[in-house]
């Protein structure tokens, strides 16, 4: 690592190259996978199946983007699954009691609740100085415990939820299902935010070098607080969509989802040490996870193998990444000597 620290600019350049390569790499992988699966099951390469994959990954894309913003600042948010579970439960209680509540209001309510839960993480981490992994590990337990306490161990099922709320995810605008539309809006918003706003650029600066960011006048604490708050907000949105799509809120809703979101981010090329990662990469990472799941089902491989395949994919992604990075580094240092 020493050489990399001495030449941060070179390092940034290398990471950029890896990201570019990564995005292309995932695409190639997806195309190759699609080709193989289509040869065995022609049903794979149909518009309907493509829509199915998109439907399945919409929520993952939203939360994976939230997770990526956190990881870019060198943090991690392990509480995303619990925030989704808690907001899904609370919003479901409210819409069951007030069936006339318009869908968009329920969505805003979910985002507000998620924002509060995310802000709590943010305060602990940025102002309290608690390491992210500890703080969010704690709130993972706390928020999940609150779901149980809140619901008294019961759940909200499809027959209780008003049709208007269920329509939130099921409905569509111009043939485009609402839930996919929601994911597209979030992707566009996060893309704009990270690329073209000052705060968005600050997130990268804080992640690649917190000390330099501080000297450059960036309010590091505030940026870190912000990413956890945004993560909570997007998880709140995801919670409402989850309850609407699966027409239920259970005590274990989205349990373990944090790992899938980290997986999508890492496979999508977000550097776990912070400072780099792209929206396009994360979307492709989530799409790859979704495609693999879909393909395994279509080819008829037991669903019991899916978890193993997902784990293997994460390992492959980091191994390939580091191999490329090392190759590039050697190449770069060799070039310098000449």
């Amino acid at each position, binding site marked *: 690592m020493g050489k990399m620290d001495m030449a941060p600019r070179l390092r940034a350049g290398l990471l950029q190259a890896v990201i570019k390569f990564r995005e292309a790499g995932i695409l190639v992988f997806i195309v190759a996978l699609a080709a193989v699966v289509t040869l065995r099951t022609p049903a794979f390469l149909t518009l309907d199946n493509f829509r199915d994959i998109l439907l399945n990954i919409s929520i993952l894309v939203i939360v994976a983007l939230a997770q990526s913003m956190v990881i870019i600042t060198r943090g991690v948010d392990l509480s995303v699954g619990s925030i989704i579970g808690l907001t899904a439960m609370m919003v479901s209680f409210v819409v069951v009691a007030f069936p006339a509540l318009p869908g968009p209001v329920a969505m805003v309510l979910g985002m507000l609740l998620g924002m509060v839960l995310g802000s709590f993480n943010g305060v602990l981490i940025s102002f309290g100085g608690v390491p992210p992994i500890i703080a969010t590990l704690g709130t993972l337990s706390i928020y999940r415990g609150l779901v149980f306490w*809140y619901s008294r161990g019961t759940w909200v099922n499809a027959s209780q939820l008003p049709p208007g709320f269920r329509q939130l995810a099921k409905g569509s605008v111009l043939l485009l299902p609402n839930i996919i539309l929601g994911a597209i809006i979030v992707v566009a918003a996060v893309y704009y935010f990270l690329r073209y706003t000052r705060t968005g650029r600050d997130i990268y600066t804080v992640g690649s070098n917190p000390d330099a960011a501080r000297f450059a006048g960036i309010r590091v604490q505030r940026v870190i607080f912000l990413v956890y708050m945004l993560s909570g907000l997007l998880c709140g949105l995801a919670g409402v969509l989850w309850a609407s799509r699966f027409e239920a809120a259970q005590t274990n809703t989205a349990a373990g989802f944090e790992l899938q979101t980290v997986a999508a981010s890492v496979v999508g090329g977000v550097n776990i040490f912070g400072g780099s990662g792209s929206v396009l990469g994360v979307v492709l990472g989530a799409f790859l996870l979704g495609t693999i799941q879909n393909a395994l089902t279509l080819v008829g491989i037991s669903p019991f193998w899916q978890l193993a395949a997902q784990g293997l994919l994460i390992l492959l992604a980091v191994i390939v990444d580091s191999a490329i990075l090392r190759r590039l580094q050697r190449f770069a240092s060799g070039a310098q000597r000449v």
Partner: protein
Amino acid sequence: MTKPIGSAATTQQPAYSARDTLARLLVRWEWLLVVLIIAVAVLNTRLSPFFLRTNNLLRTTSDFMEIGIMMLPMVFIIVTGNIDLSIASTLGLSASFMGWLHIMGVNIWLAATAALLVGALAGLLNGVLIARLRLPALVVTLGTFSFYRGLAYALLGDQAARGYPPAFTSLGQGTLGRTRIPVALLIFVLLALAFGLVLNRMTFGRYLYVIGNNEEASRFSGVPTVRIKIAMYVLSGLMAALAGLILAARFGSTRPDIGTGLELTVITVTVLGGISIFGGSGTMIGAILALLLIGILRFGMGLVNIQGQVQDIVIGSLLILSILLPRLAGQLSAIRSWRGATLGKIGLALLVTVLFGWFFFWSRTLIPAK
């Protein structure tokens, strides 16, 4: 991990300094844990007259031995500044492998030995990827977390292995000879002594602290960092497999989801025990005291009929507070002015908390309990 996760918020001071300052005030972190344990024990005796019965206390310990056994190598790993998220999945894989062999008709002790071997191999893979290929421990063990659990499902699917012979189930349910000491407790005590001695008295253990303080420097001073890190992950896999055997023996059956989520409890106990998540500091005694504290705390909450999941609220809060409180003094004194904006922010935070609390309790009553 060359750079700990989350150093952005804390780069100004090393992670352990705030706690060390307070530790000097309180003499040691461990004393605080002892005081807490005594307080909870006194509270428990008030809640239930049955708490202090030897039988009860001994029986309760068996609920925590799997966690304790996995905690021992976790102390090693966190002391070096690394992490292992895959232990519960390794536990599941090993126990499922044993169950699978048992269904195939293999002798149970042979199957158990094979399961231990699988656990060690699972740890070896983690270790090689982390130490040899220098990949971040968080991502590697996150990957193997899914991978090993997935293999457990692939082995057993939706069936459960059962019908273990009594000689085997006594590993998790039995007591030692005519005494009332559970076998699992004895195994844990012996292992804890061994791990404690290695950490404090042997070169291997001292090297762990050296690596945790500065891995680069330790490598240049001739510490065999790669071999040590691989060894500690192999130990972690092996202990997870042993915990899996004991858990399977206690349940008398194995399902592929056995032990799901235990890694979080193990990490919580370890960090609560005063092992810095950034590596380099912490003691085995502290970790064992934290295990004891969580154990009697859960037992006490069980006495007053608090659900397991709701108990997690207390455990999670304890984890956060154990890090937050020692830092709070320093963080508060870092605030330059107490006027205007600062007070406004604190007021806003309080207002939001109160509003959220009100909404939580109000909306909770919207649907009556079933």
